[in-house]
Structures are given as structure tokens and as C-alpha cells.
């Protein structure tokens, strides 16, 4: 956010209407000189120290219950340095001669400092509004992005769910196709690969295939394995499972689904020997 405060007129005015010999306006947040009517260039270190001290003296004033710090006046052997606090971020430093009339200076500076504070307040309000507008725009952009991301995620989830439902719906048909395919394969490795795919599909569609369909499917699976891969103790288990399911109807209860999942893993290990 750019701060474009212009207090040159006031600083020139201080030079023209008071006994002040020169002033420097410093941004206490950046430690940069904004305006200067003195030829001397202050080191960045001292500007930094002054801005730190501004805060320390502000706390000191509040600690003494003196309220906000207005001004620091440094009396040197050869003259005065006046440090005016211009909240929230400026520091005005003015140099006066040793014999300066402090009462006149105070009267002259009072009005100018007040006008400077007024200008700063207007600028700060502009910054505040700009920042608020920027914040709102960012918030709106973020809200839209979040909405778009949520919409896309919902679409993706819907698409995936549809795809899975379709795969599940086609699983039973596909399993029977694969059983025929298994028979057609020449090598045992190929047959095992097809069998892997069959077990995967049974697992995928475990909650959609009906018990009646499972009876048919498991019977055929047992026969196909027996003919193509030889006998196994697992075949007895497959046949027993088919028998158990013949007493059920509709999709398998959750408990049966869990048991079938375990059985499939067991059959895999016992039948497939790659």
C-alpha cells in the first residue's frame, strides 16, 4: 500500500513563519526521510534509533499516565531539536537556534502541526479505504476460488461415484466373461492374471451382487478353477460359500460382505501360485 503524504507546504511554512532553521519529516515505519529543508543528511542508524525511541517514549508517557506523547524537545549547547510525533507513522524533526523564543514557536507550530495531523488523517483514511477495498476484493476472489474448487470437487466425486456404480453394475457380467476368458488362456500365468482380475471384481462389487448371483458365480468359479488350474482345498471353501449363499436373497448383509472379503484374500493366496 503506497503512502503518498505531501507535507512539503507545511514544512516550508515552518521555515518561513517560525525561527526554525530546518525540518526533516521521517516515516517511522520505513526510517526514510520524506521531506527535508536542512542540508544535513542523517544516517539511517540514527533514524532507526529515533523511531524506536519514539515508541519507548510513548510507552514511558503512558507509564507515567501522561497520555500520548506529543513532542520531545532536546536542548543542546548550540540550539534546540524538536521532535514532533505525528501519528501513526511520522516524525517531524525541526532545528531551532539557541535563542529561539519558545513561546512564539509553540504558538506558530501548534497550528501547523494540527494541519499536518489533519492531512495525515485524510491520507490514513484513504489508505484504510484502499486496504479495505483490497481486502474485500481478495476475500471475494478467495470465496469464488473456493466455490469453484468445491464445485469441481463435487463434480469429480459425482463422476467417480457414477463410474464406480457403473463398474459395479457391470461387474457380474464382466466376471462371467472373465471366467470364459480364463478358460481360453494357454499358460497358467495368464490364467492366474485373469483370476486375479476376477477376485478384484468380486471385491469391488461385493455390496451390489446379489446372493443368488453369487451362488451361480461361485459355482462357475469353482468349476473353472478345477478344470483349468487343478484342485485345491480352497475350492471346497468356495463351494461351501456358494451353498451358504443359496439360503440368502438380495445383496449380502454387511457381516457376510466382510467374511467374503476375507475369504477372497484367502482363496487368492491358496489358489494363485505365480
Amino acid at each position, binding site marked *: 500500500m503506497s503512502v503518498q503524504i505531501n507535507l512539503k507546504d507545511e514544512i516550508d511554512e515552518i521555515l518561513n513563519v517560525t525561527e526554525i532553521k530546518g525540518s526533516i519529516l521521517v516515516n517511522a515505519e520505513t526510517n526514510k526521510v520524506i521531506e527535508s529543508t*536542512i542540508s*544535513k543528511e*542523517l*544516517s539511517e542508524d*540514527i533514524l532507526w*534509533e*529515533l523511531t524506536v*525511541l519514539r515508541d*519507548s*517514549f510513548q*510507552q*514511558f*508517557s503512558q*507509564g*507515567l*499516565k*501522561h*497520555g*500520548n*506523547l*506529543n*513532542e*520531545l*524537545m*532536546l*536542548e*543542546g*549547547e*548550540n*540550539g*534546540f*531539536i524538536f521532535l514532533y510525533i505525528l501519528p501513526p507513522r511520522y516524525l517531524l524533526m525541526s*532545528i531551532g537556534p539557541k535563542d529561539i523564543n*519558545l513561546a512564539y514557536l509553540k504558538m506558530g507550530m501548534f497550528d501547523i502541526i494540527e494541519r499536518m495531523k489533519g492531512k495525515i488523517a485524510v491520507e490514513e483514511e484513504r489508505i484504510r479505504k484502499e486496504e479495505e477495498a483490497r481486502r474485500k476484493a481478495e476475500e471475494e476472489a478467495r470465496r469464488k476460488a473456493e466455490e469453484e474448487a468445491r464445485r469441481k470437487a463435487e463434480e469429480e466425486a459425482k463422476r467417480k461415484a457414477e463410474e464406480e456404480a457403473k463398474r459395479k453394475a457391470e461387474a457380474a457380467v464382466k466376471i462371467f466373461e472373465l471366467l470364459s476368458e480364463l478358460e481360453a488362456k494357454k499358460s497358467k500365468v495368464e490364467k492366474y492374471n485373469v483370476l486375479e482380475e476376477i477376485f478384484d471384481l468380486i471385491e469391488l462389487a461385493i455390496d451390489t451382487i446379489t446372493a443368488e448371483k453369487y451362488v451361480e458365480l461361485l459355482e462357475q468359479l469353482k468349476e473353472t478353477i478345477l478344470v483349468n488350474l487343478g484342485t485345491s482345498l480352497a475350492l471346497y471353501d468356495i463351494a461351501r460359500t456358494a451353498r451358504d449363499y443359496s439360503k440368502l436373497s438380495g445383496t449380502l448383509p454387511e457381516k457376510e460382505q466382510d467374511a467374503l472379503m476375507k475369504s477372497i484374500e484367502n482363496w487368492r493366496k491358496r489358489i494363485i501360485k505365480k
Partner: protein
Amino acid sequence: MSRLKKAAMDDPRLTTLKEAVLEFTREQTGIKGQIVISYPAGVPISSSWEEDVDPILIGAVSASINLTFQNLCNELEQGNLNRVFVNSEFGRVIIQSSGSNAILITIVSDDADIYPVAFIVKDFSHKIAEIIGDYVY
């Protein structure tokens, strides 16, 4: 026991200092209280100011007199720094060195004419320097 109280018990000069500060504050109109800071330690060694102020803040503020503000005076060719006036919304403070080992903070009443007060305080700062002598916290 606070560091201030302990220090005051340890050195007779600090007892004298304490008496002097209390008497000065009591006798002078326009002065609400004073705090004497040992320099360069930045530790309060005597006070007639009744209320609590963060000692670390006091240390930072007092150190600025001999460091940052003196450097600023040098850079801007204003010579040696005599004192600093702190003008706030509801009160004023004068800060100045008392010899090379102490800094005197004077809290001035709202209605007091600050320049005569500053004049008297300057004399008192010399007295403090004499009392303290070479005392270093």
C-alpha cells in the same frame, strides 16, 4: 526486595541521595516526583515518584540521553545535549544528566511553568552528581 531498595541499603551515598531527592520534591512546587537512574546500568537508584514505572523502559529512555539524542545533537551540530523535555497530552518530564554516572528524570506538574522548573532542576542535578560521586551501580 526490589533492586532499588537493596541498592539503597548497600551504599550510604544512596541513602543521602534518597533524602535529597525526597526533600527536593517536597520543597519544590511544580515537581511531582523524580527518579535517579544509574548510568550506564540504566537502573533506578533513587525515587520520589510514588507510582510504578517499568524499570526496563526507564533504562531505555534514560540511556537515550547519552546515546541517541547526544548523537543526534552531534550530527545536527547542536553541541552537547543539556536536557530533554518530554511533552505529552497530560504531563511533562525533564530528563538530564547528573554528572557522568547518573541521569535525573523529573516529572513536572501540569500547571507548572516548565522553564523555571528546568532551571532549578539543573542546579539539583549538580548536587546529585556531587552526592553520587564515583558511585556506579
